[in-house]
């Protein structure tokens, strides 16, 4: 239960203002690690913190530590373009993402932390006939799966985004789009902080600056982790370390079907609001939305090479901005303020791994590629179930590592925001 004294509200803000904000409490404790835990979650990003929160809230497992080598929410949670949608192609993935979308609604209230989820709608543009066939296919599949989806004509696209270039006389004209009105954006940092605060209040220990250096396995079962703060025992270890999953797996002697790539994004200088939906174009490799601060938030393509540097090559960003100027000629005089990179762990089928491993008590949740942020609540929710029951949540079942041996891949390259 949330301590009523710590509850956030307009009223509490007013009360604290009278006291010059001097009495606010810590958002989370900074405990020293205990000797052992029932569950150790490696990785204090959005997914890891959500996993901890739901372990405590839904499964009553509160003897849990989240170990974060840097600071909470400092990895891809802090570096993505904050898009939330669930219009994936295949039943398995769209249901997983839609489970997440369901949780996005009401998440602020559940966490008592405003994650600023804003369902401003997401459109994926089609630029050639095959794009439009794929869009029709995906929208129909979404619809019959109960997921909000529609196909837009070029005119409907223009009605929703009046500043878009709808000329049919350009290199890759817009032929239409898929439209998920219930998708949108959220405040990425707040998601991590909200889950962190929620988990902390339920008794989870959040331990920052604690790098896991080894996963200790005895007789095929995990017994704990070596960390920069010493050995910490655990009955179960759950790795949720996007951008570092391969490195973690190798500690336990496991190989994963992953490659880690730089994925770049950029923001413009803040300008007065001019676009209030999310526009994505897979064909020309660009997507854009505008934050509540006024920045145009733009996602670029993936750099082809493996890279953990959180930076990529300039030509990828140049390519994206030429596409943006083509879609929105009026943005040409707007200026890029900052570009950065994250590390995306990509699977061969552009779908995640939410899985037990051959090591007892060791679990992995990884490989989200470019799709991790939007899945945060759902990912944490089904992974918590998987860890708690040592058995995959029904929605997580298709996402085992074993699918790469059986051949049951779920190819989402087409529906992922960016080719990878």
């Amino acid at each position, binding site marked *: 239960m949330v301590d009523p004294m710590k509850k956030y509200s307009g009223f509490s803000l007013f009360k604290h203002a009278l006291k010059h904000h001097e009495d606010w409490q810590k958002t989370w404790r900074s405990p020293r690690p205990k000797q052992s835990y029932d569950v150790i979650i490696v990785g204090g990003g959005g997914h890891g913190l959500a996993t901890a929160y739901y372990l405590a809230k839904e499964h009553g497992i509160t003897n849990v530590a989240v170990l974060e080598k840097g600071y909470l929410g400092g990895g891809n949670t802090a570096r993505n373009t904050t898009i939330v949608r669930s219009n994936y192609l295949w039943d398995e993935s769209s249901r997983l993402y839609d489970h997440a979308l369901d949780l996005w609604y009401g998440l602020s209230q559940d966490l008592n932390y405003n994650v600023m989820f804003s369902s401003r709608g997401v459109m994926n543009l089609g630029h050639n006939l095959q794009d439009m066939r794929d869009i029709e296919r995906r929208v129909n599949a979404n619809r019959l799966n109960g997921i909000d989806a529609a196909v837009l004509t070029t005119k409907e696209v223009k009605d929703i985004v009046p500043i878009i270039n709808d000329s049919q006389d350009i290199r890759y004209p817009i032929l239409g789009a898929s439209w998920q009105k219930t998708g949108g954006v959220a405040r990425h940092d707040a998601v991590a902080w909200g889950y962190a605060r929620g988990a902390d209040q339920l008794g989870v220990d959040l331990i920052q600056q604690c790098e896991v250096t080894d996963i200790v396995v005895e007789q095929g079962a995990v017994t704990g982790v070596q960390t920069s703060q010493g050995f910490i025992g655990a009955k179960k270890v759950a790795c949720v370390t996007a951008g570092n999953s*391969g*490195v973690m797996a190798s500690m336990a002697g496991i190989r994963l079907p992953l490659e880690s790539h730089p994925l770049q994004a950029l923001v413009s200088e803040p300008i007065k609001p001019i676009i209030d939906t999310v526009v994505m174009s897979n064909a020309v490799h660009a997507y854009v939305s505008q934050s509540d601060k006024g920045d145009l938030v733009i996602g670029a393509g993936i750099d082809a090479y493996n*890279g*953990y*540097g959180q930076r990529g*090559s300039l030509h990828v960003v140049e390519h994206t901005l030429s596409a943006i100027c083509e879609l929105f000629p009026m943005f040409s005089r707007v200026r890029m303020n900052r570009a950065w990179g994250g590390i995306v762990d990509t699977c061969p089928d552009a779908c995640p791994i939410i899985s037990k491993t051959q090591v007892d008590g060791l679990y992995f949740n990884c490989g989200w590629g470019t799709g991790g942020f939007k899945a945060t609540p759902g990912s944490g929710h089904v992974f918590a179930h998987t860890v708690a029951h040592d058995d995959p949540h029904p929605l997580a079942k298709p996402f085992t590592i074993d699918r*790469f*041996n059986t051949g049951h891949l779920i190819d989402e390259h087409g529906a992922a925001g960016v080719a990878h």
Partner: protein
Amino acid sequence: MLHIYCPYCEEMREEEEFSYAGEAHIARPLDPESLTDAQWGDYVFFRTNPRGLHHEMWNHAAGCRRYFNVTRDTQTYVIHETYKMGEQPSVTGEKP
């Protein structure tokens, strides 16, 4: 923006001339039919993906169209060596 020495053209070229071709030294099994599904899956899908030294293949796509190998640090992006197909790396990170 990587600057890559093509061991066939014998000079440095810009990244835009190349395409990346994934981890190097993954030999195709000689007798695929004798492998278990897990062994086959490992060959097709599973990768080392290290943070640090990585042996990888690049194709000089806009140049000589040769595939070759690169030893590159995936953290610093420093390229330690490039070498021709069929050759072995001299920089391996293993302690002598």
